[in-house]
C-alpha cells in the first residue's frame, strides 16, 4: 500500500482551489493532486501515491523505475480500476496480507 510510482505530468489545471494534473504512468493516465509539489511543471516527472504527487524525480530515474515496476508486475496492481479491483477480490482468499508480503 505504500508504493509510489513515477509518472509524467502532461497537463495542469486548477480544480476549484486545488492544483490537479494529468499524469501518465507508462501509458495509463490518471488525475493526480499536485498540491504538495508546487514546483512541478508540465513535462516534469513525479512520484505519485494514491493519487497524490509527493516528490519530484528526474526523467531517467522515473523511466528506469517504471520499467522495473512493470517487470515486477506491480504497475497493474497499483493502477487497477474499480472493476478490476473487485474482479481480483472475487478470486482472492480472505487474507490479512493482501499483497502477499507475509512469506508463506
Amino acid at each position, binding site marked *: 500500500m*505504500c508504493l509510489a510510482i513515477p509518472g509524467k505530468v502532461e497537463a495542469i489545471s486548477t480544480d476549484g482551489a486545488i492544483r490537479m494534473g494529468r499524469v501518465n504512468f507508462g501509458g495509463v493516465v490518471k488525475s493526480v*493532486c499536485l498540491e504538495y509539489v508546487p514546483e512541478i511543471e508540465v513535462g516534469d516527472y513525479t512520484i505519485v501515491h494514491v493519487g*497524490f504527487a509527493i516528490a519530484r524525480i528526474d526523467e531517467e530515474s522515473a523511466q528506469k523505475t517504471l520499467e522495473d515496476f512493470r517487470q515486477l508486475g506491480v504497475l497493474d496492481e497499483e493502477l487497477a480500476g474499480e472493476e478490476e*479491483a*473487485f474482479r481480483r477480490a472475487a478470486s482472492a482468499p480472505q*487474507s*490479512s496480507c*493482501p499483497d502477499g*508480503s507475509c512469506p508463506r
Partner: protein
Amino acid sequence: MKYLTEFRNGEIARAQAREIHAMTTRPWKIMEVCGGQTHSIIRNGIDQMLPAGIGMVHGPGCPVCVTPLELIDKALAIAAQPGVIFCSFGDMLRVPGTEGDLFQVKGRGGDVRVVYSPLDALELAVRNPDKQVIFFGVGFETTAPANAMSVHQARRRGIGNFSLLVSHVLVPPAIEAIMSSPGNEVQAFLAAGHVCSVMGYWQYPPLAGKYGIPIVVTGFEPLDLLDGIHRAVRQLETGRHEVENAYDRVVTYRGNEAAQRLLAEVFEVTDRAWRGIGVIPKSGWRLNADYRDFDAEDRFQIAGIHTQESPLCRSGDVLRGAIKPAQCPAFGKECSPRHPLGATMVSSEGACAAYYNYGRFLPAEELASAGKAMSAF
C-alpha cells in the same frame, strides 16, 4: 530467484551481492520496516542472495496487517448501513473482520466502492448529497497527506456528508518499540523510502544515536534494496551507526514540507493499537479537534462491537508464554499468515507468524529461542 534471473539488472545485483558476501564477517539482523520492501525482497529472492548470516527481519510495516480487528469490524458495520457509500482502497476488500469482509458486505447489497484516491471519495460525496460517504483511511505517513487533503477540502468546500474512518500508524515509534522490546535482535534498519519522501529523515538521527543502530533510507527496487543492505552491513562491520540516504533520487532530509504542514494542521498524535503487537504509545495520527466533525467513528458511533478472535485460537496462551505456537492445534493448519486466525499470526512480528515463517527450517532448540525473541515484541 525466478524474477531476479529475469531481471535486466541481474548482473549488477549479483555484483552487489558478492560485495556484501566479501565484507560480512559475522551474522547480522537487519529489519526492513516496510511491507512493500518485504514484498520486493521475497519476490526477487534478495534474502537468498545474502550471506547465510545476514538475516532480514520483516517489520510491522504492512498497514493492512496491523489494522486492529476492531476497526475492520467498525468498517464492516458502517458499510452495511443503508444510505451509506463506503469507499476504500482495493487491498482492504478481503481483510477479514469478526464476521466477513468488505467484499461480502457488497455482495449482501452494501454500497462499497474502490477508489484510486481519497479525493475520488470526496467527489462521490458531492455527487450524492443524500448519502453519507465514508473513506477508509489506513496507512503509514505516505498515505496520510492524501487523507489529510480530503478532509481539508471537505471542510473548505463545506461537504458535510463526507467523513474519514482513519487509523494512521507511524514508523519512528514502531522502531522505538522494536528496539526497546526485551530480547530484540534487530541491529539495523532499512527505513521505508516512500514514507521518507513525505517525512524526510530528520526524525531518525536521535534513534540511530540512542540505540546504536544504522538506519538506511532505502527504495523498493531490487538494486535499491541490495544497496540499502550493503550500506547497513558496511556500517555494522565498521562499528558505525549513522543515518544514510540510499534513495536520494526521491528523498530529501526535510521531506515534503507542504505535506508535513497539512498533516500538522489536520492530525494529532495518538496512542495506537497495532494488531498482533498491542498498543504503542504515540504511534499514530487521528483527526484533531478542528476536524473531529469529519471523523466517521464519531459520526456513526458504532456501539456493541465485540471483536471475536477465532475460538480455535490460543493466542492468549501464546502471549502469556503458556504454550508455544506450534502447540496450538490450529497452527499451520487452519491458521497461517495468509489465513490468520489470531493476532499473533496476523503480523509477521507476531510469535505465531515468526514460528511459521522461520520455525519450520530450524532445529527445536533454535526454534525455541527464535520464538522467544519474536514474542517479546
